[in-house]
């Protein structure tokens, strides 16, 4: 690479002095520019991803990760192996060493080290693995508990997570038979507790695909859900005894005498397509999620979560949670507060760019995080089939919205660093809106009931670390999206991430903030309806083919299409060039964006969510661009257009 550049330089130099001059001039300009404005910082400037190398021949399709007190880390895999990795931190470029501790388990998806043994969840059994003769190989495979299965592949079992009493929690997927079905085997769709004597105690139901859950420092169980039937979008719910978290598959077992819910059938569930907040008013056991993770923006397949109990070793987010997404190979962040005794809170982007499908995360002993990955059968943004990486805070302070919390008349945002007051007081630097999803038996949901939530005023705290947002149209039961652009810290850096989503299940009581009514001249919020970007170049019909690919790139990002689709590469969804090959009309693409037909793409594991909230004009622009990809000649034209710009 380096050599190639050098020779290119030489060619240019020999051919034409004038060009060389231009190049040098360009470099100089860039340098001047760099002095006046700092280089934009990215996630990797604060949180570094370190790869734990895996020997050739080991298929480390991670299902569970269990760091050990002695600095080793154990990993269980979907092929049923448990590997103990010595020297996983790999200081000074040293190598890790892998020992096969156990094997032959059935799709083990959870592993915990506890009092000298490993506890591993297989499809149909919680197994205690113990090495009794000191050779680093388990010789006792004790069945702590086992449960029925129907034989359906989707009946995955996860855990265990220990509580303070030494009891263990497990979560059980429902079967997939074209919809989530729980009745094929007992307690599918449930959170269960395994008591020390091995008996199963059902705790809560309504679970669909609970791949990640945790018992937090308060002893509360939080679990992540994947978009699907009865689940409009990814979400995290606090599960208490007798809760029904939304998917009806597991209700079948409420007829059992030890069910903590009274007998309930799917007919008791308000399957109306109204917001879940409304449905929960009609069904007492229906538990609202503490935090919604809007589909495609905040992941597509919620996986593991862990609470930051590192005491600052991992950065400024002590007490918050990191939530992983398998399909998008990334970590998100979640802050929780209790309002009226119930958890609710916000989620934020955090770190992208892991190598495979991030399914499991556990703290290492040094306050870094081990992230275990697999994508077989599902696909993920990270292209490897499996992997193990570590996420390490390098000690630099990211400029972030640290916490969004609810106030009686809006939100308070705490930042990780003092903010520039002038930029923070500029109301036009905030974009606020709210929306929610349908609660229904159908798979997924479009965004519904989107409305602006206009900002009345902003109060910056004395120490410049907080802003109080006073909002008109604060909407109970809605997801409130906060986008901040233009607020700077003392180093004139913008926020690392500009986005937060707060799930407002309850509005706290308290004193109202005193702000003067907003001036009518202050621009408030982007309208939720069609964007006002003038459709300037559209008039001449001949130019219609000349799609502005830069504008489309922005649209693809804005509407999160690029979370799942790339121009040329298969990600979670098909490449746009593949879509182009289907020769749809722009109008057909519009129809499919609003009402996707997953059956058109049988080779793709993840169904696309309906994106009917995207304005028609923008979808048609995207559609025109997609179709332009299908024509090789017009692609050349496109390049020309880009050069003109």
């Amino acid at each position: 690479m380096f050599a190639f550049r050098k020779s290119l330089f030489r060619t240019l130099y020999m051919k034409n002095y004038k060009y060389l001059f231009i190049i040098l001039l360009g470099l100089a300009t860039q340098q001047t520019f760099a002095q006046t404005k700092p280089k934009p910082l990215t996630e990797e400037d604060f949180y570094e991803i370190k790869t734990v190398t895996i020997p050739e021949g080991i298929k480390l399709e991670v299902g569970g990760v269990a760091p050990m007190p002695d600095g080793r880390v154990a990993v269980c895999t979907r092929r049923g192996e448990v590997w103990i990795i010595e020297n996983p931190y790999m200081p000074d470029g040293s190598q890790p060493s892998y020992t096969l501790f156990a094997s032959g388990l059935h799709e083990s998806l959870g592993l915990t080290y506890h009092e000298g043994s490993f506890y591993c969840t297989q499809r149909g059994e919680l197994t205690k693995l113990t090495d009794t003769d000191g050779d680093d190989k388990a010789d006792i495979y004790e069945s702590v508990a086992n449960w029925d299965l129907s034989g359906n592949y989707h009946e995955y079992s996860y855990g265990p997570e220990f509580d303070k009493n030494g009891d263990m929690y497990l979560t059980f997927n429902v079967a997939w038979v074209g919809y989530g079905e729980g009745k094929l085997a007992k307690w599918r769709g449930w959170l269960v507790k395994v008591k020390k004597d091995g008996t199963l105690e059902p705790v809560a139901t309504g679970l669909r695909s609970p791949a990640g859950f945790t018992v937090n420092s308060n002893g509360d169980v939080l679990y992540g859900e994947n978009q699907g039937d009865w689940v409009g979008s990814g979400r995290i719910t606090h599960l208490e005894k007798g809760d029904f978290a939304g998917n009806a598959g597991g209700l079948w077992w409420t007829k059992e005498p030890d069910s903590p819910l009274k007998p309930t059938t799917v007919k008791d569930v308000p399957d109306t397509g109204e917001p879940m907040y409304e449905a929960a008013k009609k069904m007492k056991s229906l538990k609202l999620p503490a935090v919604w993770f809007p589909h495609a923006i905040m992941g597509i397949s919620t996986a593991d979560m862990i609470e930051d109990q590192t005491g600052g070793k991992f950065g400024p987010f002590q007490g918050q949670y990191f939530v992983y997404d398998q399909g998008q190979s990334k970590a998100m962040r979640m802050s929780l507060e209790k309002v009226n005794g119930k958890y609710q809170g916000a989620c934020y982007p955090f770190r992208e760019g892991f190598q495979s499908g991030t399914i499991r995360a556990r703290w290492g002993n040094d306050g870094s995080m081990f992230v275990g990955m697999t994508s077989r059968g599902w696909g993920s943004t990270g292209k490897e089939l499996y992997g193990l990486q570590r996420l390490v805070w390098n000690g630099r302070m990211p400029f972030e919205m640290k916490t969004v919390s609810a106030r009686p008349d809006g939100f308070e945002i705490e930042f990780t660093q003092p903010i520039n007051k002038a930029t923070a007081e500029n109301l036009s630097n905030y974009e606020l809106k709210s929306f929610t999803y349908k609660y229904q038996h159908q798979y997924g949901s479009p965004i519904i009931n989107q409305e602006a939530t206009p900002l009345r005023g902003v109060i910056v705290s004395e120490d410049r670390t907080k802003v109080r947002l006073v909002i008109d149209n604060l909407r109970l039961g809605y997801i409130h999206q906060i986008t901040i652009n233009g607020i700077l810290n003392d180093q004139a850096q913008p926020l690392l991430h500009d986005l937060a989503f707060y799930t407002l299940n309850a509005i706290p009581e308290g004193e109202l903030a005193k702000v003067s009514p907003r001036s009518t001249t202050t621009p408030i919020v982007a309208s939720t309806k069609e964007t006002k970007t003038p459709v300037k170049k559209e008039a001449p019909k001949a130019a219609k083919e000349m799609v502005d690919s830069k504008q489309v790139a922005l649209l693809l990002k804005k509407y999160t299409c690029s979370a799942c689709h790339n121009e040329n590469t298969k990600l979670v969804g098909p490449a746009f060039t593949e879509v182009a090959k289907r020769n749809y009309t722009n109008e057909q693409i519009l129809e499919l964006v609003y009402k996707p037909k997953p059956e058109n793409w049988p080779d793709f594991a993840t169904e696309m969510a309906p994106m009917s909230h995207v304005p028609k004009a923008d979808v048609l622009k995207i559609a025109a661009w997609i179709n332009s990809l299908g024509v090789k000649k017009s692609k050349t034209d496109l390049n020309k257009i880009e050069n003109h710009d």
Partner: protein
Amino acid sequence: MLKKLLFLLFPLAGMAQNQIPLNDLSVFNNPSANWTIEGGVTIGTNPSAFATTTGKGVLVCTLRGAKYQLTDDLFSKLEHGDLKMSFDFMIPKGSNSGFYLQGRYEVQILDSWLKKYPNDSDCGAIYHRWDETRGKGNEGYQGHPPRQNASKAPGLWNHIEIDFKAPTFDASGKKLTNARINSVYLNGLLVHENVELLGVTRGAVSQQEVAKAPFRIQGDHGAVAFKNFSYEIFEKSDISFTPVKYEYYDGVVTNFKPANSTPTATGTLPQPTQKVISKKRDFLLKFDGKFTTKVADNYTFIGQWEAMGAIIVDNDTVVTGWHLPAEYAKGKKKLSAGEHSYTILYTKDYHWRPNSLGIFIQKDSWEKQAITERTSLLDMIPVPLIDVQPSDVPAIQRSFIMYGDKKITHGINVGMPSGLNFSYDLNQGGFLQLWRGKFLNATDMWLDRGEPQTSAPMGLTINANDKFPLAYLTSADADFPENLTKEDLFYKGYKLEKLAIGNGYPTFNYDYKGLKVKDSTTPLDKAEGLSRHLTFEGEIAAGKQLYALIAEGTSIAEIAPNRYAIDNQNYYVEVVPTATNKAIVRESKGKKQILMPLAGLKEVSYNIIF
């Protein structure tokens, strides 16, 4: 995927099977005195000799004269070209025979039991060719050992299925194509597939290859017995076709009716093919042609297409509908000898899978003949193998396991370095399958999502009864319980033991009605089979009698003290004798069982040999 596989394995299912009646020797030419028809054959305490029972159905070769000689080979009256043949065979210890296709190409029959690395002289091999001019020690060449040793112990019935394609010749007698073994399954195990035979093997009746000849059974090397001969012969299809006219309609199609009734293109092709167009959806292709049959018969038409198609013969729709190529849509029609007209329609209204169209015609005892051009039907997408094999310690793998139609959800497979393996139902404490050879095919568990989540044996397999061997019975006549509940039998886990033969052999632990039971299985010393050993501790409930079910099957014959042949000599079971207790053979619910009373004992052991 499983469905697809089944289709691949049995594409010709439903064709005529011919049985060779073994009431006498009339189907053979001049059989020597060594060949007789018997009712049954066993080997007893002397494993090298047959004992026969009179009756019919079993073809036996034993030495009647002074010694075996070449004239003891047996030739069929049937002359065959392409042939599918299946039969059972049994050999006593050390014996040797062979099945010669067309008297020229030998599939070897030999006592190769327990041989770990079989060569091209072992049972199931396509025997090597022989050329003395190659020099001493190098005469043998171009033989094919079986992929793995699939032979059973002497005295047990083996089952073999051979699919043979005869060489072809032009009118002048010049060979056009070599003979070929399409496949050989020995005891259910695929040991050869698509092996071209470049010439006759050693011991052929003639070096001259021919289109048709009798099959031959080797009888000059020792005792051997056969039964259940079943075969199909295939003639070359002799239907002739004329070039075909095609019409291509562009646009949306409903019920084979194009919206635009004027064809976009027309023409003539030597054979129908979908490749005549490049469009992937919204088209109709129509082919009209004629073919001539030489004989009146029932003809089968096979359609392998992606999306929608139809085969119309003499204005009669024989096959139609939405299909995938792997579905082999079929229809029959009676045709007179002479010329017939046919129409093929093909349409597709989606893009995301490529066009594919294959049309075939077939008659009983005929190979199927393609009507469409070869590339019109796309190849199936192959699936890579993901397997598990033991190293110097056993490989253990839990999975779902198919047991008949039932999916066992808490199954475990154990593959031992000696090449013996078993699968086991952890909830029932029972064997599911026992096998020798390669260990485990895990493709359906580890490819993509692994939706079946099942694994399958890769060796010579014996099916077992999925029953926990211990039970309290009220008397020796009481039925043995089936399907234990967790209350009766509680699985506690397993321990990997360090044994003299090596580390990592599992012992399964159970609570059975107050007894602590340990169940362990290890290979026998020379890998002749598996040895199961159960120990039980605890108070036997007062007034109750504990029994062990050692074996069960349609038939049980005691062939030597404590040694039994089970299920028509499919495998052997040996009860490890004790000084005090003696096994009982009994019948219960229509099945024969070996029951061991356990009064006064703390353990019970038995061996399964195959």
